[in-house]
Structures are given as structure tokens and as C-alpha cells.
């Protein structure tokens, strides 16, 4: 992707206390259940009560994060709204499948069906903000948020002043079980703080909602510039290393999606070999693994660039950080299939 864009505002609901307060003094939330669940805020200041009652969890998380992001960015009416989600509202999908069975296909409540459609969060944001601009939803596992980001950067190239760009994902108990049947999670109970020391098949599950306001020109409040962006689908041996080396020759810090999964650790080792002297911060002990975890990683990277510090209690185990962080290389992949690299620069 040619051309830069600037992160002007952000908001996140995640398993860490990210929605309110100062993340640089926030405690580290951890679990040994292999599932990092979101800390949900009070939604009432953002969404009217009668709407809230009908909405399921990921709709509330997505909509509220989007609204908080707009608030933080000082944008009253968003322009284009573009999101990514790998699974959409699992709760609604599961519920509708079961109600079809339980009620033998009769007298069904349409609400879970409507809310299970992947673009329902986008529709809600547009509806609540009366926003009639471009609106798109990408649903492609580890490329869901990333295609939303690409679309946003293209819109900015086409002349849009700003976009509202985000991702949302939930994990349900049922879906956690389903994915455990095909080896997504570690079979042993793992302390999330020790995730990177437990190299074994599978990782820990997570979820979250993250939104950004992106713009074509920087301002005083810009968090970071996105100056490079590349997606790589199922790279053949050697392709990842070649692409990484071609992508950038230098970064002050690397933020990685490393997750303790021995099946796909070799990709992160390729990254290590490409940049042996660059310090790294992994983030999956904070948010767990999910289709759109990349959005959380980008959110974290942008915070670090702007504040020139890392949240101390989240990274107490890492101590060799550079004094100045002017550039961050972000690298993440989702179960070895969708690989993403983003270069962020300090504004």
C-alpha cells in the first residue's frame, strides 16, 4: 500500500482495562483458563437503554467502542465506516441455530438472525450516528481488520478526509469448545503471563473490539503514522523472510503476535532471524488469540509511539527497550495462514 495515513483517535474494549483510564499505569489482567474475556464497560452512557436491551454482547462492544473512538477523536459524524470481524455475533448465530431446532422452525424471533449478519454492527453505528457515507464489512479471519484498514487507506487516497475503522470479535463458551476440538487452544491450563514460555500446540483464546479514526493529514493529536502495510497469504517457504526483509530494513521496536503455539512458532523465528538486534514486545498475553487481534496490536503500537513508553505492568518481564521509539514494525499471523506486517512511525 502506497501513501500514509494517520491514527487520530482510538478506543478499545479488551481483556485489559483499556476502555477508560491510563493504560500506562493499568494492572495486568491474567488468567489460567486459556480464555481471556473482555472487561465490559458500562454501555449506558453510549447507547440508549431500550436499544441496549435488544443487543447482544459483541454488538454492544463494537458499537460502544466505535462511539468512544469518535468521541475521543472529536469527530461528530463519521465519514466512511469500515470494519472487520472473523466471526461476527457468535452468540446470535448459536442462538438462531438452536431456536430453529428447538422450535421446529416455527414462531421464530428474527432478532438473532438479524444480529448474526456480519454487517449489523456497521449498520448500527451508521444508524446511531446518522452516517450515510461508504460502509463496508470484511469477514476474512486474520485478514478481516486488515482488509478494513486497506479499504480505509484507499478511501483516504481517494480523498476522504477521515474514516472510522475497526474490528470486533467475541468468544463464547460453545465456540471455545468447538475450536478446542481442532487444536486451536493449549490442552494444558496455561497462565497467560507465562504464555511465551509454554511452547506447545495451540494458544489461548481472546476477544476484543478496537476502533480507530484514520486521516490523511497529521495533527497535534495524531498517535502514529501508518507508513507501510503488507498482507501475505499462506507464504511458501522463504517467502515470509524475503517479504519481511523487503518490507523494512529498520525499526526501533517490533510488536509481534507471538502466542506460544508451537505449530506456527517458526514464522516468528523467521522474524527473529530477520531482525536479530531489534527488541520485541509480544501482545497476545494481553488479548489472547482471535481473528482480529491485529487491531489490538496496532492500538498498542500506536499508544507506545505517542507516549514513548510501554505500559509497565503489562511488560514487566521485558526490560531492554530503546530510549526513543520512532518506528515500530508490527507483525502478526493467524494460524499460519494470514500474515500481516505494518510499519508505524512517530508523528
Amino acid at each position: 500500500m502506497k501513501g500514509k495515513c494517520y491514527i487520530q483517535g482510538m478506543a478499545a474494549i479488551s481483556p485489559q482495562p483499556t476502555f477508560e483510564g491510563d493504560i500506562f499505569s493499568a494492572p495486568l489482567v491474567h488468567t489460567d483458563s486459556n480464555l481471556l474475556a473482555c472487561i465490559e464497560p458500562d454501555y449506558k452512557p453510549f447507547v440508549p437503554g431500550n436499544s441496549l436491551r435488544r443487543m447482544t454482547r459483541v454488538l454492544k462492544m463494537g458499537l460502544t467502542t466505535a462511539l468512544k473512538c469518535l468521541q475521543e477523536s472529536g469527530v461528530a459524524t463519521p465519514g466512511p465506516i469500515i470494519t472487520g470481524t472473523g466471526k461476527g455475533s457468535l452468540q446470535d448465530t448459536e442462538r438462531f441455530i438452536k431456536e430453529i431446532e428447538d422450535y421446529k422452525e416455527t414462531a421464530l424471533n428474527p432478532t438473532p438472525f438479524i444480529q448474526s449478519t456480519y454487517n449489523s454492527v456497521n449498520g448500527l453505528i451508521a444508524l446511531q450516528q446518522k452516517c450515510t457515507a461508504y460502509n463496508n464489512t470484511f469477514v476474512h479471519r486474520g485478514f478481516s481488520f486488515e482488509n478494513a484498514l486497506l479499504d480505509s487507506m484507499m478511501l483516504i487516497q481517494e480523498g476522504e478526509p477521515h474514516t472510522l475503522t475497526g474490528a470486533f470479535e467475541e468468544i463464547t463458551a460453545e465456540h471455545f469448545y468447538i475450536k478446542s476440538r481442532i487444536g486451536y487452544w493449549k490442552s494444558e491450563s496455561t497462565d497467560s503471563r507465562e504464555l511465551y514460555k509454554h511452547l506447545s500446540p495451540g494458544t489461548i483464546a481472546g476477544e476484543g473490539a478496537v476502533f480507530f479514526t484514520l486521516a490523511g493529514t497529521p495533527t497535534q493529536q495524531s498517535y502514529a503514522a501508518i507508513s507501510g502495510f503488507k498482507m501475505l497469504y499462506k507464504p511458501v517457504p522463504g517467502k515470509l523472510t524475503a517479504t519481511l526483509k523487503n518490507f523494512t530494513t529498520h525499526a526501533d521496536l517490533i510488536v509481534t503476535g507471538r502466542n506460544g503455539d508451537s505449530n506456527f512458532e517458526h514464522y516468528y523465528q523467521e522474524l527473529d532471524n530477520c531482525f536479530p538486534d531489534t527488541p520485541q514486545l509480544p501482545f497476545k498475553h494481553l488479548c489472547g488469540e482471535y481473528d482480529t487481534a491485529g487491531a489490538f496490536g496496532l492500538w498498542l503500537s500506536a499508544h507506545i509511539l505517542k507516549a514513548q513508553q510501554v505500559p509497565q505492568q503489562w511488560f514487566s518481564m521485558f526490560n531492554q527497550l530503546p530510549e526513543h521509539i520512532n518506528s515500530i514494525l508490527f507483525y502478526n499471523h493467524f494460524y499460519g495462514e494470514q500474515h500481516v506486517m505494518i510499519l508505524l512511525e512517530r508523528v
Partner: protein
Amino acid sequence: MAERVFITGIGMVTAIGDDVAGNLQNLRLQRSGLGYSSYIDTIYKNVLPVAEVKRSSESLFEMAGIPVREGFTRTTLLGLVAMREALLHAGITDVQSAPTGFINASTVGGMCDTEKLYFDIINPEKTGLFLQYIDTLDCADCTQRIADAVGFSEHIATISTACSSSANALMFGARMIKQGMLPRMVCGGTEALTRFTLNGFNSLKNVDKQFCRPFDQQRTGLNLGEGAAYLVLEGESFVKANNSRILAELTGYCNTNEAFHPTSPSPEGDGAYEAMKAALAMSGRTLEEVTYINVHGTATLNNDVSEGKALERLFGGKVPLFSSTKPFTGHTLAAAGAIEAIFSVLAIQNGLIFPNLNFSEKMEELNITPVTELIEGYPVNNVISNSFGFGGNNASLVISKYEG
């Protein structure tokens, strides 16, 4: 100046044909694909008409050119059948011959197969090969299996904006070409009938027990359909260098959100009006230059009023010839935008205006009526193709005759 974007290959499978030629033949013969389902496990099998592809999944494996195996859903197979035809039609024997992206669209991914296995999947006492279907629950599964079968390794994406999904896939692909990111994109969507969507639309009281009657006073709802369609898009400079055969030009498009209601369009058709107006403005064509409109025309009470009002507002007393082809194919949700984009290409190539089947009585809210008989030998230069969906997602495409 951004690159012009040309359509250089088309491939499809619907209830009225296994390929483009089959679809064209049945459009000409005015033969609908509506009937009753042989493959969905539902109590509405003999009650609610659907437009089902008349092929078992085993037969689709053969058409898709792959051996029968676990993990390939009907969604994937329909997509692969249409994809193979689109590539062949564009003369692409190896997608690696030039950097080529793939933008797919899906509303419920592999639900057609997973809904039959779901209760086994969540039952710890059941185990077996069916577990290989777990990953087909999402929308990316079909995209990746199609991509891997034909060898796409450049950009891939899946879009889900309900019934406008594949119109948005075409738009996204065209924009990537215009930005110089890739010279060639294959865009479209795939959709298989499911008990899930049939019950979903039925719970909204949106499904007609008779064959659907778009733009008719007595219409009571839609009929679902299944199918897949892909269009090969190429940028102008690539077309010249590659000496590609041009079928038509994608001259305009617009994606807009109506911000009115989660499932209903506004009564005055604000979103439809904006989408058509902006797409036409982009195409540089005037209102008078629009020959034909392939309307969204689902035959739901709300859509047809809203879309009809939008047509009257935009074109005033001179609404062009228009028809809904949903009585042929059913409403194929994520595939609809691409299927109807191909019908628009066929209208241009063959000088045809397709009839809106099952119409008999003008809607009281409107002054306009759709075309009801096949018109042949009619010069078609510019077609607007509409796709409107849940969540207020509206999309319009303008497809034009190539005139150098």
C-alpha cells in the same frame, strides 16, 4: 487519471443454468428456476419455493473438477464451478501468469453444511470426519478453498454486507485496480441455500409462498435462491498489454448506507436514490443514457416501494426500462450482485432486456411498471445494477458497453 476497469471474463452457476450460456438460454426462454428444494432439511421443503441449483453436491464436485472430500461445502463448490468458468472465459489458464487478486462475498459461509452437523460438533460424545467441517463455519473458508484450488496467492478478501456483498466485492476490486495495486482482480460471491437463512427471512415474514412477484401490487415477499458468480476485472493498461477481450466496462459504482433501520429501507428510497445517483455521476453518463436497470426488486413489500420511489425521484417521468431477475434466480443474497452484474453484461452483449416474470398489477404507490416480455435486438449501452441489504448497505453499479 485512474485506470478504466474492464470486465474480461464471466462465470456463473444458478438455478437457471450451470454456466453463463445456460443462464442466457433460460433468460431468453423466460424459464424460471423457482421450485421446491431437494437438498435443504426443512419443514418448508414443499411450502416455500426456492431457486435451487439442480445439482447434488456430488455432482458439483465433478463440475468443480475436484475429488469428493470432507470440508468442501456447497458454498465452496458452487463458487469453484463459477470461478473455473470465469477464468476459462477470460483465457486465464494460470492465475499466476499475472498478479491477480480475489475478492469474494458470502453471507453465511458454509452454514449449508455446518447446520447439518452443528449438534454433533458441540456434542463431546460425537467424533469423526465431520470435525473437518468446523472451520467451514466462517465466511473465509469458501474463499480460501477456492483460492487454493485455482492458485490465487496475491490479495484475497471476503466481504459480507448482506445482500449487497458481491456488488461491494466488485467495487473493492475495481478500486484496487484504479489505485494501481493489482492489474487483475476476480470478484463476485457465492451463496448456498440454508435452513438458517430460509428461517431467518421467514421469521421476518419476508418470504412468499408463491413464486415471487417483484413490483406487483399483490407481492408478499421474496424467494431465496443459491448460486455463485465471478467477474474478471482488468485495468486498461493490462488489457492492452495482454490483448484481453473486453466484454463491458465497469464505469460507475457507489456504496452508501441509508442509516434508516436495521432491516427496512426508507419509504422514499433515500439510500437507493443516492447509490444510483452517485454511481451514475461517476460513470459520466446522463440519466437519458441509461438503457436498462436491473433492479434489486426482491418483491418484499418494503424494497419495491422504496426502490420504485427512488427510480421515480431520480428519473422523473422518464424511468428507463427496468426489471427484476429474481423470479429467475431467486434472491441469492451474497451472490446476487455478481449474478446480476453478469446479466447486465449479457444484456449489453446480446441486446436483450430481460422480463420481470410474474408481474400482473401495477403497485398503487408507483406510476411505473417493469418490463414483462423479453425484448430482443435492443441496443443496450448503460445498465444500472442495484443491490440493497440489511444494515442499510446499498450498492449500485453502472456497467457500460465498451466503445473504445
